[in-house]
């Protein structure tokens, strides 16, 4: 193959891989004109800001709600993931969202990278729920907030903001302990919330599965 052909093929890569660029400003001002431009800018700034639609100048970020989709099988979950990894939660990095529905951003370290990340990467996991200013913890039923120090195998999707969101709420988040993986509904996490029945969203329903076995399955699907 010729190098030119490879360059042309790269044109067609998945758009999700292509990092957006801010529109560069033209260097139209000569140095001597710069001061005059600054002065003009200062004089008109107030007027300009008043006339500009606020929505056009504010940065906008899109995130997925953690329980927005329900996945019917592990294959489907893997197919929609762009980050799969065994992570350890370091702690809460930020609480965001509104007071009526806060959202938490947890910081986690990648301990075993499978897709879209590398070992020892620090990732930020966005999820709905968290602590309000009035010290109430709002938590989505069946989708417990991540616990500091806990390890999870996560199936996640990357957000434009640089965070990622676990897919399918509790579906894409497997509890890891002593080399074994369990679906959230097979742990005591939901029982702590007083829920005894299994989550209807729990397509994987893993119970005491060795990590290596699950990884092998993931790689098989990814290879396809």
């Amino acid at each position, binding site marked *: 193959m*010729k190098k030119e052909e*490879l360059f042309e093929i*790269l044109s067609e890569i*998945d758009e999700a*891989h292509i990092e*957006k660029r801010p529109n560069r400003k033209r260097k139209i001002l000569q140095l001597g004109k710069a001061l005059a431009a600054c002065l003009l800018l200062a004089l008109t700034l107030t007027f300009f800001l008043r006339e500009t639609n606020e929505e056009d100048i504010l940065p906008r970020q899109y995130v997925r709600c953690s329980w927005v989709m329900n996945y019917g099988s592990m294959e489907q979950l893997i197919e929609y993931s762009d980050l799969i990894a065994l992570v350890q939660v370091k702690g809460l990095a930020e609480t965001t969202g509104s007071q009526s529905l806060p959202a938490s951003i947890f910081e986690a370290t990648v301990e075993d990278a499978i897709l879209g990340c590398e070992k020892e990467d620090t990732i930020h996991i966005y999820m709905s729920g968290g602590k309000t200013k009035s010290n109430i913890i709002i938590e989505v039923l069946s989708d417990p907030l991540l616990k500091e120090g806990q390890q999870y195998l996560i199936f996640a999707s990357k957000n434009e903001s640089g965070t990622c969101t676990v897919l399918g709420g509790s579906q894409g988040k497997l509890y890891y302990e002593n080399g074994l993986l369990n679906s959230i509904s097979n742990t005591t996490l939901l029982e702590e919330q007083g829920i005894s029945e299994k989550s209807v969203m729990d397509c994987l329903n893993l119970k005491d599965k060795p990590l290596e076995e699950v990884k092998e399955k993931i790689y098989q699907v990814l290879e396809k």
Partner: protein
Amino acid sequence: MEDSKIVELYWDRNPDAIPETSQKYGNYCTAIARNILGNKEDAEECVNDTYLNAWNSIPPNRPFPLSIFLGKITRNLSFNRYKYNRAQKRGGGEMTLVLDELGECVSGEDAVWQEINKMELLKAINAFLSRLSDKKRNLFISRYWYAESTSEIAKRYQMTESNINMALSRLRKQLGEYLAERGFVL
């Protein structure tokens, strides 16, 4: 103006679509064209052709994000112009270096690549990119999609140019190995 509103202008066949596109994405497209062509006049021509292409393809397309859609058109038009210029022994810019680097991943031999094989190769490249960390993937894209100079990339990532060259060299090697393991003899 928001992308969705600009796209609506195209759908309404409203000529304002072009100046609005130019105002929002003109510099973005010009930067891509200049990276590839290394010359202002040709770059401007390719950017104008980009608007014409966008006008002809929206509708039926409703691109999102609009920036990447336009960037892709500019990239293709500019690369075609680059090949023409090179045949006329004109210009070069950053592109010659970018291509030389990509040359490390291929044999350089003429071979008939069926469309179906190209699709498979594209799929494998996408899978390779998915496995990279965001930073490494963006580095790869900066160089081999946007054709940016290593000094520009170094500035953006606050790294030295030699570190960027080293990282790109590793990425090329990894890509070559990844494709070879999957049976692609390029």
